[in-house]
């Protein structure tokens, strides 16, 4: 009995488990996949051949060994990757000892946790497909395992789990929108090593050129009013101030929540929403000078960049209002100026000499900046993705011998020259430009748009952005990297850049953007905005719980009504109705266990005068009902009408 039931439901459970595990195959060591497949195959064969399960003295050491192997492979059990690896190993061990329904229910629960761990690792647009498939398989297996009567075919289980999914879908939607989202985390999330993408807090020659080969999306922007021109899109992320002769490094910033008063605000205001991809870092992106922002845990650093007090470990959406071309810190104390003049005490001697002599020849700081830019423009400097390597005196080598570099080379040497000439300068790393998606009104900023530029502080003006790359390769700023490199013949268009495919790519990116906005980015902020849009101002979690309860009760009642409707009693067919009418006319109800013929006998005995009429009516009733005689059915009502009980 038991083995018969197992034989029937185990294939469902095993396939559900394999489907749920499928996305983990690429991210897990091969042996885990092999182990799972092997134990599934073993269990399936032992079931088919009615063999014994592997004995305990085989399973226990195997389990311990696999656990140690996971420990060895990941160096611990903390974190999503080792956790899901452990889950898979547990599943493999459990399959080998599955004997009854309860074991199979445990396997179903493991399936659910495998699904969750998949989402903790990645949440692409395909996740929804995976969720539906894996959940459907798990529920089908669950239905098969918990089936108590004689087994049914796979079509029945499929139908059952689909109907469950369909009924659950509206409830899911309501919970999704209304369930109060509390900003986490409650406990420390294990950081994923080597998983940080994008910019880093140090900048050495070659860093950004590495990034520019990546097509990954850094963030997406939707402008609320007219977008600024491409050459204005300088997305500031990190300000680097400390120079060690080769690399620039960001200070641990002091967070300020208000913009200081000495900012010279210009007119152009731009408002936009940014959806940032997770970076595991804390900095955010904003155009020149952000003055207002909305989003969880956002603060402004003293370099006037936006930061988050917690790492961005999931897609994060925020709104900013920026003043374009604003110059901050018009009056900077001397001490602060010195801080931005710091250079290593030695090294790059030629560059220092060049800077001081050129400054001496210039009438003002502004003129000096212009002459350096002119120098870059007029001397044979090249903008290239593969600059030659630089040694210890990197600035000297770049300025006077190689003269081939990427934006970080230009920014770095420019800032060096500025500081050497006594002008406070710093490096800003961020992104420049972006690609507008013509299908929907938003901009995609990719890692390949990463850029580094400089800001110099000028007496009476404040901080002023200077992008030396623009002097060398203006196309980079006005269009994008691709066109700048096309000009230098370095970037060849691949076969995938055909217009049709380009369109498809953009379409795909748009789908991803919507996915990000509505699914992944749906958090406390989006929820708040949604309710504001509905006219509910800032509902707190208590209100949400009340709304949720009301909606759920409403939906559940609808489902109950629907279930009651499909389970309603069978209405009597028209022939049956005539028979009931006949009984009413005669004032003689039929007994539940009485056949129509028996009833006719009884009715005739009670009303002998109506014998023929009753006999004819009952005969027609039987013909209509059981022989499906159409003419009999048509005549029946008039025959019943003809019966008049004698007073």
């Amino acid at each position, binding site marked *: 009995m038991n083995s018969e039931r197992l034989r029937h439901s185990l294939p469902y459970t095993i396939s559900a488990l394999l489907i749920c595990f499928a996305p983990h195959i690429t991210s897990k060591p091969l042996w885990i996949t092999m182990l799972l497949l092997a134990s599934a195959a073993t269990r399936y064969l032992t079931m088919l051949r009615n063999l014994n399960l592997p004995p305990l003295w085989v399973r226990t050491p195997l389990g311990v060994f696999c656990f140690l192997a996971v420990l060895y492979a990941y160096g611990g059990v903390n974190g999503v990757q080792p956790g899901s690896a452990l889950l898979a190993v547990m599943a493999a061990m459990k399959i080998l000892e599955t004997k009854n329904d309860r074991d199979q229910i445990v396997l179903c629960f493991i399936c659910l946790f495998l699904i969750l761990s998949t989402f903790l690792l990645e949440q692409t647009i395909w996740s929804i497909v995976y969720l539906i498939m894996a959940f459907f398989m798990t529920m089908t297996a669950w239905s098969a395992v918990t089936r108590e009567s004689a087994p049914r075919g796979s079509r029945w289980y499929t139908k059952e789990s689909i109907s469950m999914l369909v009924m659950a879908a509206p409830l899911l939607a309501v919970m999704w929108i209304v369930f109060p989202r509390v900003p986490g985390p409650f406990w420390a999330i294990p950081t994923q090593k080597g998983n940080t993408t994008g910019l880093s807090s140090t900048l050495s020659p070659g860093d950004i050129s590495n990034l520019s080969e990546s097509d990954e999306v850094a963030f997406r922007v939707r402008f609320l009013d007219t977008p600024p021109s491409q050459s204005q899109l300088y997305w500031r992320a990190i300000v680097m101030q400390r120079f060690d002769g080769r690399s620039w490094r960001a200070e641990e910033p002091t967070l300020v929540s208000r913009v200081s008063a000495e900012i010279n605000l210009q007119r152009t205001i731009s408002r936009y929403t940014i959806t940032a991809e997770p970076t595991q870092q804390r900095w955010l992106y904003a155009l020149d000078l952000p003055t207002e922002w909305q989003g969880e845990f956002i603060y402004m650093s003293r370099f006037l960049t936006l930061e988050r007090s917690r790492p961005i470990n999931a897609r994060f959406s925020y709104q900013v209002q920026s003043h374009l071309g604003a110059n901050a810190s018009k009056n900077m104390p001397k001490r602060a100026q010195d801080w931005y003049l710091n250079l290593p005490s030695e090294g790059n001697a030629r560059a220092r000499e060049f800077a001081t002599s050129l400054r001496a020849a210039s009438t003002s700081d502004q003129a000096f900046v212009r002459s350096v830019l002119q120098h870059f423009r007029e001397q044979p400097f090249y903008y290239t993705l593969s600059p030659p390597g630089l040694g210890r005196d990197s600035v000297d080598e770049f300025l006077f011998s190689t003269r081939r570099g990427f934006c970080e080379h230009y920014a770095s040497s420019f800032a060096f020259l500025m500081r050497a000439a006594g002008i406070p300068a710093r490096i800003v790393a961020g992104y420049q430009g972006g690609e507008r998606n013509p299908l929907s009104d938003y901009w995609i900023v990719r890692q390949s748009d990463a850029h580094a530029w400089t800001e110099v502080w000028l007496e009476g003006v404040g901080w002023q952005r200077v992008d030396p790359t623009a002097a060398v390769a203006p196309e980079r700023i006005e269009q994008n990297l691709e066109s700048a490199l096309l000009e230098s013949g370095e970037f060849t268009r691949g076969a995938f850049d055909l217009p049709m495919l380009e369109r498809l790519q953009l379409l795909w990116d748009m789908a991803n953007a919507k996915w990000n906005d509505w*699914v992944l980015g749906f958090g406390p902020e989006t929820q708040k905005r949604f309710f504001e849009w509905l006219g509910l101002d800032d509902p707190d979690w208590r209100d949400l719980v009340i709304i949720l309860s009301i909606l759920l009760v409403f939906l559940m009642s609808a489902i109950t009504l629907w279930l009651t409707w499909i389970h309603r009693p069978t209405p009597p067919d028209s022939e049956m109705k005539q028979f009931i009418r006949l009984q009413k006319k005669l004032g003689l109800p039929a007994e539940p266990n009485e056949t129509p013929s028996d009833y006719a006998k009884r009715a005739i005995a009670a009303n002998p005068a109506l014998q023929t009429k009753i006999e004819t009516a009952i005969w027609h009733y039987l013909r209509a009902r059981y022989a499906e005689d159409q003419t009999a059915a048509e005549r029946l009502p008039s025959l019943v009408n003809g019966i008049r009980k004698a007073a």
Partner: protein
Amino acid sequence: MSSTASARPTLLQRIGNLGAARVSRWVRKRQGQETLPVTLRAKRLYILPTLTGITYGIVVVAMLLGSMNYNNSMGFALTFLLAATGLVAMHRCHQNLSGVNVEQASAGHAFAGDPMTFTVVLSETGQRTKYDIRASLDGSVSHAHDIEPGLATSLSVAIPTIKRGILSLPRIGLSTRFPLSLLRCWVWIYADQKALVWPRPASDAPVRPKTHTDQSGADKGRGEEDFAGLRDYQRGDSSRRVAWKAFARTGDMKTRMFDGGSLSTTWIDLAATSAADIETRLEVLCRWIIDAHDAGERYGLRLGDTIVEPAEGLAHRNACLDALAVFGESSA
């Protein structure tokens, strides 16, 4: 069975039993006595999560916390999907029992110590199949069955019997865990069914005294079979009296009839037994009745004041055994 009955219940079990008894009394008072057929309406159904359901709930809460902590949107989606599925399962489970028609319930026959089969006939008033319905009676549960609309389905519960007498079965239970076994929905019907448990046939009964005391038999005095014709076979007729030759010839089962007076009539009498214990004596009578039936005899039963007139056939045998079952029971 007897070993578990004799084991002393633990304290926890006693508290549980006490609680169950209270709930049982409350339900009894709430519902009152009823007669079959009964259609199960939503109001009288009870529903509670099963152990699997409780585990499921804990898993949903754990997943919710995890999703909040990692701020994981798809994690929320999975959690909400699970919660929604649980809610839907609850309603489907409830709906799965509501509207079922309990047509009738009937007890079978059993000798004390043998399991008695109790049959509950169910049908579905609606147009949808009801899945995985079980009947339970006095702690015994039937196999699960689907109830198709328009088809009567009978669920059989085997109840253990211990001693002879009238077995009172106050409460019929019907339950379902469909779908997903997360919840169990059940109903109690107080139809006060009675079942008769026959005495166990004595294994070493004394030889049955041959008491041919029928007066009409003495009149004719011929004693042995006097063929009086054939009649249609009826269930319960002894196989010894089937006209097998005629059956081979015509294919019709006929029972040979004998002249009433000529057939030996035996009286099985409680007074003829000698054991001290009344139960033992009834067991001996039970054995004698079975033997007499198997031998195809015509026999009557005297139990003090109760007299079952001589007859033959299975129905007669059962009537005699029923008389043994109710003997001395006050409520008989």
